[in-house]
Each structure stands twice: as structure tokens, then as C-alpha cells.
């Protein structure tokens, strides 16, 4: 079985991270920004897994990626709770229009 070289994984992860950054900046919607964040977290996980292939006895990279997935799940849950509250309060989720702390 021919294994893929490490540099290809790293380039794909870099492209994925950049696209996630662009999504998180250009979307005018909180959920769009969350999607960009998910893409960036996936890129970082891809790097961790690609390096973890060269650590076969301990697999620390995969363990770290596992914790990153757990934290991402918690983060998305809390963020969507906040988004629902903000939508109930402002009737919009455009972050440019949510400019008041208290109304």
C-alpha cells in the first residue's frame, strides 16, 4: 500500500484552513461564521492526524484531535444556544446589526 506523503496532507490542510478563514470573515451570518470555524478546526485536526501517523506507539496527535472534536462539539452547542437567544431578541443574526448590549 502506497502511503501519501506528509506534505500533501499539510498542503490540503493549509488550503482548508484558508478557506475556513475566508468563510468566517466574509459571511454576514453567525451560522456562516460557525461553518468557517468548523472548517478551520477540521484543518487543524487533519494536520494533527497526519503527523500522528509517524508516532505509532503513542498516537498523541490523534488523542489531541479527539479532544479538539469534543471541544468543537461543546462550542457549537453553546454558540447555537446563544444564536437562538439573539434571534429571539433582535429578530436577526447579522452580527453587523447586533450592536446593542441591552435594548
Amino acid at each position, binding site marked *: *500500500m502506497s*502511503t*501519501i506523503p506528509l*506534505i500533501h496532507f499539510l*498542503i*490540503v490542510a*493549509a*488550503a*482548508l*484552513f*484558508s*478557506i*475556513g*478563514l*475566508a*468563510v468566517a*470573515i*466574509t459571511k*454576514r*451570518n453567525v*451560522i*456562516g461564521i460557525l*461553518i468557517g470555524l*468548523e*472548517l478551520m478546526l*477540521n484543518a487543524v*485536526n487533519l494536520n494533527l*492526524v497526519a503527523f*500522528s*501517523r*509517524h*508516532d*505509532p*506507539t*503513542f*498516537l*498523541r496527535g*490523534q*488523542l489531541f*484531535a*479527539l*479532544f479538539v*472534536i*469534543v471541544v468543537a*462539539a*461543546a462550542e*457549537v*452547542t*453553546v454558540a*447555537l*444556544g*446563544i*444564536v*437562538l*437567544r439573539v*434571534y*429571539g431578541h433582535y*429578530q*436577526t*443574526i447579522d452580527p453587523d446589526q447586533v450592536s446593542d448590549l441591552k435594548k
Partner: protein
Amino acid sequence: MCIGSALFILLTRNLMYAAFALFVALLGVAALYVLAGADFLAVTQLMIYVGGILVLLIFGIMLTQTPERQEATASNRVEVLSGRRFWGFLASVAVFCLLLFTLLGSRFRLGGDTLTSRSTLRTLGVELMTSHLLPFEIAGVLLLVALIGAAYLALNRNPSA
């Protein structure tokens, strides 16, 4: 496939299409995990991201859909949007070039043999229960706190509204 669907997320304007493109991108990342020899992590990715996070995102999109999204915006608003889009593209291209130069200019000294084709499940389980027990417990407590916090945030404290 992964990069293409991620670009589609960036370019589309419909949020629902973006969510489905994210589905394809996450599947692509899971396939790359399999190719990198991380089978357990690929299954975890499928279960948590595709099964959990994506469903939550689609619920969020459907619950916060504003019905009037027609052209009620002025022309200056479009200019502001295009400006932000331009700076976003510029920043991401700059970051990508920086990462690419760094990656192509670096030489990784990789010690140790590469992973063989056996399953990673046993190693992950043993490591998680011996030397990484404290982060494991902290992750459990974090999930509990996130559950309670999200339930409290999503609670409707104003029944009249």
C-alpha cells in the same frame, strides 16, 4: 472533493447549500483520516460532526430563517459587503501563501517508523485511560457544563414573547 466543497461554501450565498457543502467537506476529511491511518478518528468524525454538529447547524438555520430577505438593502450596504469580501479573500490568500512557503521551505525530521496497517483503537484506548486520564475527565466535565449551559441559554425565560 474536500477543497471543492469548501470553496462552494465560500462562494454560495444560500446558507442551506453551505450546510450541505459542509457535509461533503466533512466526509472528505473523514476519508483523509482513513488514508492517514486513523480509523477510529474517522468514525468519530462521522458520528460527531456529520451526525451531531451538522444537524444542529441545520436546525439553527431553519429556526433563524428570516422570511423577508429581499432587496431591502441600500446600495451602500452592497459596497460595505464587497469591501469585507475583498479583505476576507485577501487575508485568506495571504495566510495560504504564508503557510505554503513555510511548508515547502521546511524539512521535517521525522523519527520513528510510520504507522502500520493495524487498528489504532487499542492504542487510543490504553493511552486515554492511563496517561491522558485527566484531560479525559476534564473533557467529560466540559461536555456536562456545555449541556447545562446550552439548555439554560435556550430556555425561554419570557413566556409572553
